[in-house]
């Protein structure tokens, strides 16, 4: 718990900053637009309709869409003006959150102002107010409670949704939740959720205080609220500036959203730091976000898998390709087409593999996927979010004619448990996952080699290789140092023994010298 709390200032501040900025921008756009709409009633339905449609886009998708959209925009601006636009990090999160905050504020502004009694508008005109005076002296004060209610709704929504900035590369309280769920660290999840709730409630009460102060015309609560809000904004802006100064030269190492990735990114970060260069982790990126991030220079390095790049980036789906072939094709194509360097293969594969309960497999006599195909119509399969839409699954279906009774998608952290308890029969496991053993599952052999090999490879940007050759050399030395056995142990240590990825990475680097793979066997108590 102490380890989690130590990160609270960092994540909490980032979260607060995103929320304040998004709501500020949302209000700065929505309140004037809402007022304008009450003067142009014919456009009201159209504009509110657009805002409602934005609201119906699932929030995670809305944020994730910003990444390729900004990458495309960045490609254009850097060609046209030589100014790149960062595709991951704070910008996509901020845009998504701002869009999300528009609807409640906009709608409440329109409702609040058009809800002002017609007699009062007539009186305002009758006593000789200009349009502007009518707005400021009559309509806005009377609509204030409704507008503020919209603002409060927006704040609560944005605080909640800002936890989803983590997968697009903006740190937030979501870092606790994403990493915590993947590494089965409930403390982290708890800290993230409680902190977000406290933040939402505090900001909400602060705005409420401001509203009461204005409406009841009490200067004291109004002043307190204004001063507190100004302090918050000053803190947010100050911390942002300070971080900007601070983080100038650090090498940024990305990771995707599962345990192995957290451990590997920590190993990379620590390896870089040992060369005397500052490095920081950018954890929990969405699967394709990580690649886009490396391509656009938002991160400098991360670990991906040869088969993944081969299938999803290069679009290959030839069955039966060997480990070496895939690795060579990936290395060449990445360097030629994307300017991305493959610094080395770590020495293990983390392949997609179909796994099932050992007992069921024995009963049915299933050893290979060919065996499995016979029983599949009576069995249920579960996979992570992406597997069923990936080329590998299509290839499996084609090679074996697989047809299951039921296909389900679930969070990878729940998949193993579901298989272990027999809620589903087959899962798309990751071959290095410690939970295969923990839940007594068996990997079913891909006898027709429909799934390509998945060597873990360290990938780095052109800039890193050119500007920091010593870092690239240090990372290249990690090649061949982690075999599948060791990776499984490290995953197990995090998932089942409750160690932090950082601690496991540290242990690895210390024990290593890389030749003597004595990783402490899983015998310690959790909470270490």
């Amino acid at each position, binding site marked *: 718990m102490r380890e989690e709390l130590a990160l609270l200032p960092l994540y909490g501040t980032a979260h607060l900053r995103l929320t304040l900025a998004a709501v500020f921008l949302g209000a700065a756009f929505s309140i004037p637009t809402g007022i304008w709409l009450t003067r142009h009633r014919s456009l009201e339905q159209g504009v509110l309709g657009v805002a409602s449609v934005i609201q119906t886009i699932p929030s995670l998708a809305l944020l994730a869409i910003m990444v390729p959209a900004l990458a495309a925009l960045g490609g254009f601006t850097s060609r046209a003006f030589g100014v790149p636009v960062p595709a991951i990090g704070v910008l996509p999160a901020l845009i998504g959150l701002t869009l999300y905050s528009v609807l409640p504020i906009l709608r409440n502004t329109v409702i609040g102002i058009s809800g002002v009694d017609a*007699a009062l508008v007539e009186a305002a*005109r*009758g006593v000789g107010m*200009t349009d502007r005076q009518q707005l400021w002296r009559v309509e806005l004060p009377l609509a204030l409670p409704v507008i503020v209610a919209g603002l409060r709704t927006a704040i609560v929504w944005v605080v909640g949704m800002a936890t989803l900035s983590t997968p697009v590369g903006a740190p937030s309280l979501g870092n606790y939740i994403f990493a915590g769920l993947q590494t089965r660290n409930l403390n982290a999840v708890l800290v993230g959720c409680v902190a977000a709730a406290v933040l939402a409630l505090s900001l909400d009460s602060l705005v409420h205080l401001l509203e009461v102060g204005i409406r009841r015309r009490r200067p004291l609560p109004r002043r307190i609220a204004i001063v507190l809000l100004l302090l918050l904004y000053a803190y947010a802006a100050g911390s942002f500036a300070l971080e900007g100064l601070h983080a100038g030269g650090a090498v940024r190492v990305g990771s995707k959203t599962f345990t192995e990735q957290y451990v590997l990114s920590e190993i990379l970060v620590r390896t870089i730091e040992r060369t005397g260069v500052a490095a920081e982790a950018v954890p929990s990126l969405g699967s394709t976000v990580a690649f886009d991030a490396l391509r656009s220079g938002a991160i400098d390095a991360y670990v991906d898998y040869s088969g993944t790049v081969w299938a999803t980036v290069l679009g290959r789906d030839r069955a039966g390709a060997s480990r070496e072939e895939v690795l060579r094709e990936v290395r060449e194509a990445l360097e030629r087409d994307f300017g991305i360097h493959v610094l080395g293969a770590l020495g293990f594969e983390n392949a997609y593999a179909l796994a099932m309960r050992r007992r069921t497999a024995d009963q049915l006599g299933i050893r290979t996927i060919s065996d499995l195909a016979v029983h599949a119509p009576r069995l249920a399969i579960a996979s992570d979010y992406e597997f069923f839409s990936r080329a590998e699954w299509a290839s499996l279906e084609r090679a074996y004619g697989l047809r299951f009774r039921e296909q389900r998608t679930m969070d990878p952290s729940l998949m193993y448990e579901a298989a272990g308890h027999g809620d589903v029969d087959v899962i798309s496991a990751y071959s290095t996952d410690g939970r295969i053993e923990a839940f007594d599952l068996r990997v079913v052999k891909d006898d027709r080699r429909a799934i390509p090999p998945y060597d873990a490879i360290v990938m780095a940007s052109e800039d890193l290789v050119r500007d920091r050759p010593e870092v690239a050399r240090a990372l290249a030395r990690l090649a061949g140092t982690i075999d599948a056995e060791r990776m499984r142990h490290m995953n197990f240590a995090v998932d089942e023994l409750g160690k932090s990825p950082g601690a496991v990475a540290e242990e690895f680097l210390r024990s290593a010298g890389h030749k003597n793979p004595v990783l402490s066997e899983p015998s310690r108590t959790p909470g270490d």
Partner: protein
Amino acid sequence: MIELRTLTKRYGDSVAVEELSLTIDRRECLVLLGGSGSGKTTTLKMINRLIEPTTGEILIDGEDVRGLAPHELRRRIGYCFQRIGLFPHLTVAENVGITPSLLGWSEERIRGRVEELLRLVELDPAEFAERNPDELSGGQQQRVGVARALAAEPRVLLLDEPFGALDPITRDRLQESFRRIRQELELTAVFVTHDMVEAILLGDRIAVMNRGRLVQVGTPRELVESPADDYVAELLSTPARQARAVERLTSREAVG
């Protein structure tokens, strides 16, 4: 003096007011009388440009009302209407002082004026100035409404059925106050009502309107003695008939 010259207001195909010409003398109270849909309120609102006429013109003391921006015009003309429209987020004093504050009067001057006006409409400033409008009775609210309309010392006052929603006793008291105030301040007033008795009690002259047209203008006596048509005749005979009916009933009760 207010001159309305061949005023017409059309909404699409329908005509709300048709070629209406009328002159209201200085210090006169002219009542615009008619049923609903007669065009009386539209006529009134064209004077302070809450409604713009389709054709025709309006002169106040010889000057075209279109010579001023609408808000500047309205600051010079008091306006009072049935729904009153006191601003609920302002105190009574702030409501009364609103037009002076728009005109940029000093706070000192506004405070003095507000007190003077509250006394004029028979509300004790000490008791009422700092109250919120929703703490007042309907009659008190309309007194504040009248005070607000008079705040910037207008020469002209427009009233759109101001006492229509009040109970008879309160209405009677406010009518009484209004007569006194109008004489004290030598105001030119245009008063819209559908109530014949009110028209006779308050109007120096009555202009009868029906379906957007001016039917007849004259003093109450002129109208009673020589109504222009059956509509006017019936309109004017109504209060007398009612009065007789009331008298009959009450005297019978007295006998019984």
